[in-house]
């Protein structure tokens, strides 16, 4: 079963391993982020590594406190003051951490961000038109009329037909779903090369989510845009991303081609996460709950596997050493027993 799927996977858009052919658009290596909390520094990311190829969509999945939002913020250099960052972030070969002033601003126009809460992330006293065209006019000197014309075109492609009227409205006059579409159109307006989407559909209804995801997916492919898609929903990430990375306690536990994630996961945590969700097509006698609760990065021990305390496959050795992220079957996994367990974890789907 798993070998068959692996063969299929080679046709999918993105290469799976980190030593893939061609230069990565975004390369994050050994990223450590610590934030000041009540006077002391608290780790939120523990040596996080990931890469995204040009045009590739990478899903980043995890429970609360796993550090997925902080990853996006760290990449776009949006961490709160007092944060301490180590490791390297390279975008198109350039060192992001060393950027200052105009260079940093140019980088930010190449990387667009979509946030979970569009209401909080739009200025309430500025009109939609102003919000959409600001970056275009400021950074590229596009004249207002031209910028508005382009905004209206993009609004149309996200399914908003009456653009000219929308541009004159204020954010509070739009519903959440509509505002998120505006956000997406705005993000795409400056023709970025990488999209950082932080739970862009979590606050939306399921049908609206499907619609917004479809728009995002379609436009992204059209424009050849790479994307880091952050979500807590494993199924959603697997459906719209080429590869999916699963985070736990500030670490990447597994990176897998999305089509293999359910049938042939490499890490026990991924398998447990998939099994814990109730199913829409069957009533289970009992859900396979994971005991305990998710650990935050600062609670996880530095010298042991972070998942050890909740893992059904735990052995004594797991509590002694932090496993490395290693390549396996075209994916990456951070499990000491990965080779041993290979092919046995995807028990769930027929």
């Amino acid at each position: 079963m798993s070998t068959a799927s692996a063969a299929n996977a080679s046709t999918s858009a993105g290469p799976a391993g980190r030593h893939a052919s061609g230069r990565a658009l975004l390369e994050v290596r050994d990223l450590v982020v610590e934030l000041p909390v009540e006077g002391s520094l608290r780790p939120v990311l523990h040596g996080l590594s990931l890469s995204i190829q040009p045009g590739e969509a990478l899903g980043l999945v995890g429970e609360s406190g796993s550090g997925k939002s902080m990853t996006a913020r760290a990449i776009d250099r949006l961490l709160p003051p007092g944060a301490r960052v180590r490791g390297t972030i390279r975008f198109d070969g350039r060192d992001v951490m060393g950027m200052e002033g105009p260079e940093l601003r140019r980088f930010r126009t190449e990387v667009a961000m979509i946030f979970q809460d569009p209401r909080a992330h739009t200025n309430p006293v500025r009109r939609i038109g102003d919000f959409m065209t600001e970056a275009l006019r400021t950074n590229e000197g596009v004249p207002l009329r031209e910028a508005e014309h382009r905004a209206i075109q993009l609004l149309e492609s996200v399914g908003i037909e009456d653009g000219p009227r929308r541009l004159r409205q204020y954010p509070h006059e739009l519903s959440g779903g509509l505002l998120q579409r505006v956000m997406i159109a705005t993000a795409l307006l400056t023709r970025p090369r990488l999209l950082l989407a932080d739970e862009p559909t979590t606050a939306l209804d399921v049908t609206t989510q499907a619609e917004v995801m479809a728009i995002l997916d379609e436009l992204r492919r059209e424009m050849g845009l790479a994307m880091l898609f952050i979500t807590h929903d494993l199924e959603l990430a697997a459906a719209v991303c080429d590869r999916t990375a699963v985070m736990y306690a500030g670490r990447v536990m597994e990176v897998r081609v999305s089509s293999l994630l359910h049938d042939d996961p490499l890490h026990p945590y991924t398998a447990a996460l998939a099994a814990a969700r109730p199913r829409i097509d069957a009533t289970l006698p009992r859900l396979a709950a994971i005991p305990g609760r998710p650990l935050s990065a600062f609670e996880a021990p530095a010298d042991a596997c972070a998942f050890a305390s909740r893992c059904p496959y735990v052995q004594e050795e797991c509590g002694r050493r932090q496993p490395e992220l290693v390549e396996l079957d075209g994916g990456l996994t951070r499990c000491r027993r990965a080779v041993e367990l290979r092919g046995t974890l995807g028990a769930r789907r027929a």
Partner: protein
Amino acid sequence: MRLRFLLRRLAMLAGTLLVSSFVIFSALFLAPGNPIAVLSGGRSLPPDAVRILEARYHLNDPFLAQYWLWLKGALHGDLGISIALREDVSTLIASRIGTTAALVLYASLLILLIGIGLGLAAGLRPGLLDTSVLAVTAISAAIPSFVAAIVLILVFSVKVRWFPSLGNGQGVFGTIHHLTLPAVALAISSLAIVARVTRASVREEFRREHVQTAVSRGIPHRQVVMRHVLRNAAIPITTVSGITIASLIAVSAVVERAFSLNGLGAYLVAAATSKDFAVVQGISLVLVTAFVLVNVVVDVLYAVLDPRVDLGARAR
């Protein structure tokens, strides 16, 4: 929509003023003491004289009729006659209102220019400047106008003799010269409050998520500050400045007393002491009207600055 908002606000203003005028009138109507006794200065009058006075001041009319007469007069600019000075209250108010208006205006300018200026500087530049502004305003916010008055008189008119300590002054420059110390005394604590609120609002706006959006889109810092931080902070700054300036209208009485200025407030206090009811009623009405008007202006400004205000709904 905007027009409807304005009309609605004006109707509320009229309602508030009507109720206020009723409160002012009835409070003094209910005051203990016989008006005839006040009119006669305590002497006992012959019954004929009492009857004439009662008729002239409508003392025997029912309460509501008296209120109606007073209100009608007030609307025509007739606020009755001062018992102490035997003069038209309106004339007396007209001769004094200039001083109070000039004083409040002068103090307001100080508050807006210096208060908001200091607040912006502190809000935008963390560090030594910010710390010193915080420390200085913490103390000056607690200085009552009359304490400021004695210190200013002591330093600037007794010691260095730059400014006069008493009186109104002649001509434009004379007035400015004479009103400088009173205006500073009146403004000092409000100025500090406005500065602190301004600083806090600017800091607060910096932390908003939409500012993060602007930063994430590569907008230059200067523009982020101007178009997203300051523009949005203008809303709370306007509100607090307006409320603070409105409160000066009443506090001016204290400053006028401290500097022996010939203004409305000082006159009100004198009338209150001598129980000159018509004067107290008249000046109270003028002050309340001014206070409420300033508040309406603040409300309208707020609605103009913040598109989220539902213009059809109640203000505030």
